[in-house]
């Protein structure tokens, strides 16, 4: 039920509710929290990519003054020391084998960090190095060493309980989807293109690394303050590991210093909890940036795609075979390979489809969720090949895309949500914003790319709104604030529906013992799913107010209306405090409204229908220094179909941040492994975008047709903008030079090698994969 008349708060770029505390330095993050008697923890990590643990000697460390706990796997007999949302394949501490450089072996908690480091110096570990698999090629080679032997325990996601590993191989999950005549569709194709594109290992680099503080109470209950994006998933994990009812575990989440998917699902929380139990006091386990490089990364990939076109340019068949390198532990990668591959056909109408993807273990940092969740890896291939097809068919790349776009309301896949946006409007807006129809200046070229992504489903979001006696309101939701501005958006929605000033709405920080269930703050879903729950909860309160007023005034509720913190009917106007006073017979009491959004399971291929389709389109104009291979993105246009911006300025900030993070893996970022070891686990060797990398001209455009399932017609934004960047830049490079690169990032050296290869063998295929040059 949306308030009648023009919107007062929704749709306006109001100030962030957490702005003041952040600009004054008062904002508190996990790393800022301290508790009396709190110990500090450090980890000893494996220097080898794969080795057998022969001996772990901790006696001297335990005896070191100021040490409260020293843990090895042998000390964890009192709990179930394995975790992982899809497969519980990750040990708290290495048992008999270490599976990647950085795999935790010993954990120490001491009076302070210095003492913890001194204690770790006293630990002696003997390893017997074993042959490791560092790449997809090595991991998938017949007879390759197995990163995991034996059956892992299933995780806690019902849709992944039927994980389909390939026994005796490093494949821990497979996903398949087909429709129409599958590969048979290529028989109708006048043009068939096939190619393989790879995506590098990249790092989230939330500026605040992972961290957790755990404390057990006298009754055996556990509280964990954690820098996490889904407190309820962490709670479920800890409940299983420590054999506790969920009600005895409290996960409290302060502000996050960034997340980007890297802080989804349990990371350091289980180890902090184990240390706190043994140390008998609160323990803070705070990762460094270098630790974060050895905690999680984006799943890298090798994606083989076949596109079949009719002579008139219509897509008739798409085949995709994607291998995702998920590192040493599965984390949520089994879902990533599903989500990423499922929309391999992007926003296009394709009758015949056959998709397959593998989650492949390697002896590297585990791959988990990262903004885009598998879609960037696939779209880099598909949208590059759409441009190649346009060239072969003699068609304009934008026009070829327009021809194949699904229409508003059309079915994407049987059982899933129909397309909920006007895709051709987004395409024409991006063409207009990048001035597609104007010839680029000399030495420049333009490229476009489009993407469509499903949000997680099924999923559940609940909200509680408490209207207090003075007419102010508290909103209780478990949405985590990690910079995306969710708390402000929830306040705006509640203020709009309750018709009270924004300043009188408080959004309570996420705490599983107080705020109701929400599955996760990721997948661009919070505004839509949690926002609707808040809208419903607020409407529930308004319904109660109308009932109270109706009874008091003796008129039907329908004859009454909400207006500026009061219910009005005819000449009478009853303010909320007055209404509560009437209802409770005293000044006090509160009205509690509840909202639950839980669409549940459907026939959709991934088990639930996406609540909304995130659609984003990008246009890049580049120049190139041919002698050095350095690409400059001179202009970038990003279009997102958001339905409605609840807070336009924050949508812009999200979109600009997404594009710049996309520019990172497009031009600059790569985790470099050599000899099984990560060479650049720090910001000197790993280059993230700086202010100087921002395109001179940068347009963020929003398509707002209020056609979303979210409150006031909103949909999700925040991941989409990142996805089209690499194919758009890759397409612009191809149009400028004829060079088609299939590896990211497009570093100056890589582009230089391709230009040189073409100069030396102009007749050969436009590009050569070549070996893996230095970054």
């Amino acid at each position, binding site marked *: 039920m949306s308030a009648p008349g023009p919107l007062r708060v929704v749709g306006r*770029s109001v*100030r*962030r509710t*957490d*702005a*003041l*505390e*952040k*600009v*004054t*330095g*008062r*904002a*508190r*993050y996990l*790393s*800022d929290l301290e508790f009396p008697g709190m110990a500090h923890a450090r980890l000893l990590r494996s220097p080898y990519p794969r080795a057998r643990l022969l001996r772990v000697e901790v006696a001297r460390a335990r005896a070191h003054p100021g040490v409260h706990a020293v843990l090895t796997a042998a000390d964890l007999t009192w709990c179930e020391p394995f975790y992982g949302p899809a497969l519980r394949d990750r040990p708290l501490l290495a048992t008999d084998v270490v599976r990647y450089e950085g795999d935790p072996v010993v954990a120490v908690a001491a009076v302070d960090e210095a003492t913890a480091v001194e204690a770790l110096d006293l630990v002696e570990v003997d390893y017997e190095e074993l042959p490791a698999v560092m790449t997809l090629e090595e991991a998938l080679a017949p007879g390759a060493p197995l990163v995991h032997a034996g059956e892992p325990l299933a995780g806690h996601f019902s849709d992944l309980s039927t994980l389909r590993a390939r026994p005796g191989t490093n494949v821990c999950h497979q996903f398949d989807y087909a429709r129409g005549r599958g590969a048979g569709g290529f028989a109708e194709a006048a043009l068939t293109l096939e190619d393989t594109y790879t995506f590098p290992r990249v790092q*989230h*680099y*939330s*500026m*605040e*690394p992972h961290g957790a503080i755990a404390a057990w109470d006298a009754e055996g209950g556990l509280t964990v303050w954690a820098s996490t994006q889904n407190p309820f998933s962490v709670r479920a994990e800890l409940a299983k590991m420590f054999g506790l009812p969920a009600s005895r575990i409290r996960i409290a989440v302060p*502000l*996050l*210093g*960034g997340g*980007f998917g890297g802080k989804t699902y349990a990371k350091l929380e289980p180890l902090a909890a184990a240390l706190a139990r043994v140390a008998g006091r609160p323990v803070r386990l705070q990762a*460094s*940036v*270098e630790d974060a490089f050895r905690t999680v990364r984006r799943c890298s990939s090798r994606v083989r795609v076949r596109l079949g076109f009719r002579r008139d340019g219509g897509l008739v068949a798409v085949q995709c075979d994607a291998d995702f390198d998920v590192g040493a532990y599965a984390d949520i990668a089994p879902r990533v390979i599903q989500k990423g591959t499922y929309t391999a056909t992007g926003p296009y109408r394709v009758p015949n489809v056959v998709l397959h993807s593998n989650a492949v273990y390697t002896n590297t940092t585990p791959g988990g969720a990262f903004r885009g969740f598998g879609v960037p890896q696939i779209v880099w291939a598909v949208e590059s090949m759409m441009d190649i097809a346009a060239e072969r068919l003699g068609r304009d790349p934008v026009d070829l895309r327009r021809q194949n776009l699904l229409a508003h309301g059309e079915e994407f896949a049987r059982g899933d949500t129909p397309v909920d946006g006007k895709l051709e409007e987004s395409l024409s807006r991006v063409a207009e914003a990048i001035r597609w129809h104007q010839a680029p200046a000399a030495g420049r070229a333009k490229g476009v790319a489009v993407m469509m992504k499903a949000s997680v489903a099924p999923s559940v979001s609940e909200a509680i709104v408490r209207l207090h006696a003075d007419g102010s309101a508290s909103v209780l939701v478990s949405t985590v604030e*990690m*910079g*995306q*501005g969710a708390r402000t958006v929830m306040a705006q929605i509640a203020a709009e529906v309750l018709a009270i000033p924004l300043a009188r709405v408080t959004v309570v920080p996420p705490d599983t013992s107080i705020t109701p269930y929400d599955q996760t703050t990721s997948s661009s879903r919070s505004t839509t799913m949690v926002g609707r729950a808040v809208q419903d909860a607020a409407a529930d309160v308004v319904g109660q107010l109308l009932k109270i007023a109706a009874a008091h005034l003796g008129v039907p509720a329908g004859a009454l209306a909400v207006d500026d913190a009061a219910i009005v009917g005819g000449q009478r106007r009853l303010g909320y405090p007055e209404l509560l006073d009437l209802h409770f017979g005293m000044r006090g009491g509160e009205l509690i409204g509840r909202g639950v959004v839980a669409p549940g399971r459907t026939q959709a291929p991934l088990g639930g229908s996406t609540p909304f389709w995130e659609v984003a389109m990008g246009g890049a104009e580049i120049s190139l220094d041919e002698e050095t291979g350095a690409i400059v993105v001179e202009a970038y246009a990003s279009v997102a179909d958001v339905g409605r911006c609840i807070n336009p*300025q*924050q949508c*812009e*900030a*999200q979109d*600009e*941040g*997404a*594009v*710049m*993070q996309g520019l990172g893996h497009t031009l600059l970022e790569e985790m470099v492994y050599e000899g099984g070891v990560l060479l650049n686990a*720090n*910001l*000197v060797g790993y280059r*993230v*975008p*700086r*202010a*100087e990398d*921002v395109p001179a001209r*940068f347009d963020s455009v929003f398509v707002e047709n209020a056609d979303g399932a979210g409150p006031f017609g909103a949909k999700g934004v925040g991941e989409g903008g990142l996805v089209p960047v690499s194919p758009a830049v890759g397409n612009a490079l191809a149009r400028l030079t004829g060079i088609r690169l299939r590896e990211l990032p497009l570093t100056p050296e890589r582009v230089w090698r391709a230009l040189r290869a073409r100069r030396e063998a102009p007749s050969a295929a436009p590009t050569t994969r070549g070996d893996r040059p230095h970054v």
Partner: protein
Amino acid sequence: MNVIPIRSSCSIRVTVNGRPVELDVRPEALLLDVLRDRLQLKGAKRSCDMQVCGACTVLLDGAPVSACTFLAVEADGREIVTVEGLGTEERLDPLQEAFIDHAAVQCGFCTAGMLLTAKALLAEDPAPTRQRVVHYLRGNLCRCTGYRKIVEAILACAHER
């Protein structure tokens, strides 16, 4: 010769956000840890820990330094300004105001460093060009905003001077 023996402390007097402070610190104590753990000034943050990201920036006699790689003893007799010293909630510094108005703040972990670095820049050059701002921010990373709104917020303060 002035010596501070290993594992012993020496007393330093520092003006922090306008207030004189006297502390006993060990030679190896880093300024960032002294500010955060001893003075409870949690505004400066530890991120890269290698002088690259700027999240730990504080002003030393008006000039930006990386508190994560700066010995606390070196602050003796000098003036430190942290983000907590920029303005108060009632009276914000124009830069703080501009960062809010331009949505130049998202997760907030880089914000203290950005504000203090911008403060030093505007003290040096009240009306810098966009290119000057971008160069001055070479050592201040942000992963959320994509920088545009940060640069615009700083430029907005420049024109007002």
